[in-house]
């Protein structure tokens, strides 16, 4: 009994330690967005202020980098979301010539080290004489995030009862109507999850982007460059806002799922 109590207490402490481990860096980031720093370095606490939120877009290069990153992330989410979902649908539903190879390629793309992928993409672009910049970043982001979408959607498709689609066909729906009214609504949670993953992977990618960016600056690239001369608090604020947006989406999703379960 006493041993059980001790184990219970031990588990509690361990749990809080893990949570602290995960949350602490984020907390520090948020906190230093409110730091009234005057020097070049934002590392020592010098008092509380909201002024960085007011001066959020005062560094032009940083703002441009953030806009680039958001634009690339949204486009990646849409393109990889659609293409990856189609791949996932095909892999989950049908056995076709080359489906084994397709699975292998998907897995390889997920497990491949970013540095390898970035370097090989660069040599590809150089060989084909494609000018580096916004479009090469977008192409490479779609390329590495598409398999994550495909794998997520495939998992969802595989749990789908194929007789649902047969029932729709039986009731007079053609292939496209069946997809629109039955298949898509059923796999949509997977499509959504995969697309969000693609967005998240794209917005914070550094290694692959660094190889293929040319002169285009993204948010992570700008931060990397700035660390040598000291990070302005605006970076913390932008990080905080991106994080808050993510939390909001997660909470909304959880609430929606609960309402759907109760409906």
């Amino acid at each position, binding site marked *: 009994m006493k041993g059980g109590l001790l184990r219970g207490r031990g588990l509690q402490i361990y749990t809080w330690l893990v949570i602290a481990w995960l949350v602490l860096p984020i907390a520090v980031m948020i906190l230093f967005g409110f730091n009234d720093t005057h020097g070049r370095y934002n590392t020592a606490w010098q008092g509380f202020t909201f002024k960085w939120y007011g001066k959020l877009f005062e560094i032009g290069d940083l703002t441009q980098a953030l806009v680039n990153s958001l634009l690339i992330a949204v486009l990646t989410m849409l393109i990889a979301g659609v293409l990856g979902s189609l791949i996932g649908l095909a892999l989950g539903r049908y056995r076709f010539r080359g489906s084994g190879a397709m699975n292998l390629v998907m897995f390889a793309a997920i497990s491949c080290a970013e540095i390898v992928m970035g370097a090989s993409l660069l040599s590809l672009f150089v060989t084909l004489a494609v000018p580096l910049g916004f479009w090469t970043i977008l192409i490479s982001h779609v390329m590495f995030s598409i398999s994550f979408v495909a794998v997520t959607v495939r998992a969802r498709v595989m749990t789908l*009862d194929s*007789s*649902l689609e*047969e*029932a*729709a*066909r*039986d*009731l*007079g*729906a*053609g292939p496209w*109507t069946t997809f629109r*009214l*039955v298949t898509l*609504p*059923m796999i949509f949670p997977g499509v959504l999850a995969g697309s969000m993953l693609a967005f998240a992977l794209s917005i914070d990618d550094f290694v692959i982007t660094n190889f293929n960016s040319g002169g285009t600056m993204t948010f992570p690239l700008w931060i990397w460059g700035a660390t040598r001369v000291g990070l302005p608090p605006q970076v913390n604020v932008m990080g905080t806002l991106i994080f808050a947006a993510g939390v909001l989406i997660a909470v909304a999703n959880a609430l929606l799922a609960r309402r759907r379960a109760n*409906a």
Partner: protein
Amino acid sequence: MTEIQAGPGAAVAAAPVSGDVPAIELDHVVKEYVSHGEVVRAVKGVSLAIAEGEFFSLLGPSGCGKTTSMRMIAGFEDPTQGVVRLHGEDVTSVPPNKRDINMVFQSYALFPHMNVWDNVAFGLKRKKVPDAEIKRRVGEILEVVDLVGREKRRPKEMSGGQQQRVALARALVNRPRALLLDEPLGALDLKLRQAMQIELKRIQREVGITFVYVTHDQSEALTMSDRIAVMNDGLVEQLAEPREIYERPASKFVAGFIGTSNLLSGTVQQITGDTAVLALGASDRILVPADGALAAGASVDLTVRPEKIKIAKDQPEGDLSVVRGTVSEVVYLGTYNSYVVRLGDGAEITVFEQNANDSTITAERGDAVWLSWQPWHSYALR
């Protein structure tokens, strides 16, 4: 409409009336799959004609080809060979959404993201039926299946029996020319299943639509069907009315699959008038109606239903089939007792004895008994 007549004269299978076009026709249909590089023949040449308004069952063990046959009628499988006709029209290459038949799936296949109303209205909306008519017809069919007031429910909030009725309504609301049902009662418990059997039969009578029913449950098929096709290993073993199939099974397989059967075999010793006598021992004999095909010396497989056999301690008199044996098992089953009797040659015969009098049983385990039955209850198998 084919009607079953409950009498000995109804032994002939009611084939579709000549001149009438059958509602559904399979014409020498073969279905082959390629699985792991090997060709599997799921259906090996099935021909059958189902009449308008008939309750027709495809009955057989799993893997016999009954579901594949039904899916070819629905259009989900293309036959490797042969022709599928609906009301005389060749539909072999017509996709399922263009066939005027509907199916009730084994898993019900209700759309989980739609409520009952939207599920049921799905087919009518696809056919661009006017809204007012959709409203009226969905309301009507929900009344038939007793689901009024549950229109806004999601499928997963309903019991298995209710889901079953939604699936039925979703198919019937389209007024298809035929309804296909793939083991629709398989997931229900026994009581509900029996209630739904009666319910299905009632609905079929009310709407007057051809029902094609796939099942592996022989009692379900016997209860509901006008005619049954018993399938085994990709072929139809027998196609007849339930009574015919039970009383006069066409093969060993049918005899064994439908109900409990005792399979016996012997050699014809002599033919007396219209009866062939099979000798088993000094005082044991089996009498079989001789239909001309039997001659002395021929070996015969025959079947006797357990409920046709009388069990007694004393030797019975009269022109009966008579065998002796020892009781090896007695089971009290409420409405009847079941005995397993071991014969001298080791064969076992099951006997059902109605519990008509009281709970006393005729024989105990280990007792020597006489079994007897009328000659016409021996049914020779080809």
